[in-house]
């Protein structure tokens, strides 16, 4: 079977994605910075001038929601389409197929690094200091990436058989934008729904980020439990679904 250098392939595919996406744009990777900033400006205007709220330092609060959500939405949608977009590769080059969705998620992670940079810059600029709970940050982000990986493995494999998958993803993303506490606080969610809310890993991440960066407290045991359980289960399920479906990719692409 294929006995190559897994990491070398992943690195090359991630670099390819990154270069192809930006090489032909005059602003290049600057788009990665511009996009969340514009969203932040507009939403800050809407939610402080039109729908007034009393959340202090709203831009930082908003970024804690926007950046995880954007990452999730981008990684999910790009990852789901990845196998079909790389049909030439999947059908013509004998490689382990899972490298395609995995490299797609990892290349979105490169953008994430830039965006986390923006988040931390704004956090500091608004006067929230560094605290030792920042040590939680890598862990909560890793769980998020693990969750997206599982989701993408499953969705990309299903997308090969049922091309409707991308519309399912698009619609779900739209719904999630309102169901994840991006422009409102999880404290405003009615008591009877909050437990359900926090089982959503994207919500859990948003809440964790606000606790760590704004309140300066640890994310808390129950939140970390939710995040880790859902993420690891998603990865396991995604992997199993991918393995079950990948043998017939050739016939359907």
């Amino acid at each position, binding site marked *: 079977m294929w006995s190559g250098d897994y990491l070398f392939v992943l690195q090359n595919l991630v670099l390819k994605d990154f270069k192809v996406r930006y090489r032909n744009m005059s602003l290049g990777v600057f788009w990665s910075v511009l996009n969340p900033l514009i969203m932040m400006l507009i939403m800050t205007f809407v939610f402080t001038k039109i729908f007034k709220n009393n959340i202090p330092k709203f831009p930082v609060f908003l970024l804690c929601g926007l950046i995880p959500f954007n990452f999730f939405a981008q990684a999910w949608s790009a990852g789901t389409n990845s196998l079909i977009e790389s049909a030439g590769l999947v059908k013509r080059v004998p490689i382990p197929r899972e490298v395609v969705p995995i490299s797609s998620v990892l290349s979105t992670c490169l953008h994430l690094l830039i965006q986390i940079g923006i988040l931390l810059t704004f956090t500091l600029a608004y006067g929230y200091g560094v605290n030792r709970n920042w040590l939680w940050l890598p862990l909560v982000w890793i769980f998020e990436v693990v969750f997206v990986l599982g989701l993408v493995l499953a969705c990309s494999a299903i997308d090969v058989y049922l091309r409707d998958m991308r519309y399912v993803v698009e619609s779900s993303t739209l719904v999630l934008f309102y169901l994840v506490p991006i422009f409102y606080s999880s404290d405003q969610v009615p008591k009877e729904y909050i437990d359900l809310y926090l089982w959503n890993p994207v919500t859990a991440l948003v809440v964790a980020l606000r606790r760590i960066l704004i309140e300066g407290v640890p994310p808390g045991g129950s939140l970390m439990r939710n995040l880790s359980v859902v993420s690891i289960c998603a990865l396991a399920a995604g992997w199993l679904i991918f393995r079950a479906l990948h043998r017939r990719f*050739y016939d359907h692409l």
Partner: protein
Amino acid sequence: MERVVFQNVSKRFFLNSGRKLISGHLDDLLHGSHKHSFYALRDISFVVSEGQSLAIVGANGAGKSTLLNVATRLCPPDEGEVAVNGRLSAVLELGAGFHHDLTGAENLRLNASLFGLTRRGTADLFDRIVDFSGVGEFIEQPLRTYSAGMVMRLAFSVAINIDPDILVVDEALAVGDQAFHAKCFDRMLDFRKAGKTMLVVSHSPATLRHMCDRAIWLDHGRIVEHGALDEVLEAYESRSANPA
């Protein structure tokens, strides 16, 4: 050593598989699925040993490419067994896995890694591959500035220079010029002397005579004739000239 072994291999394709509206799926459930399928390969058996080189000939749609795809493990057979021993490298389609916005060098590294080369191995072979391809200073230019022949030369240089045990080639050589053909034939001769194996699909008898010693003639997914290259080619050409 037996490099490639096919044992009673069949491959079926379903027409329209999966692409249906919900009503279509419901119809299948209620009235039983009657999928239309055809055999792209039917009961194929052969062995290619070390140092042998197999040509596959046949009309369009005879199953030649499917056979190569099954051999490279890109698609699993529906029936039968396939065994492949050794590192395999394949040029199935011109520039498969290449991206036209990446430079030649970037594509080269990507392709080498897909074929299973390590970072070290790629760095060591880089100059040799570029040199063999003859694309010269274009190697730092995006692939979209290349001619079809240059893309093929680069792809082929990667495939043959990573030192595979089995080389699979599907028609890709067709766009190369005479000089590059000569270079490839030389390399392939060395390749066979070193006990390596090739599977080649081509419509050019001259190319096949350079590269192969045995041949399979496929028709509608079945083996019509299997034997020494000259005999099979002769039979195939006489049939093609005077279709029964």
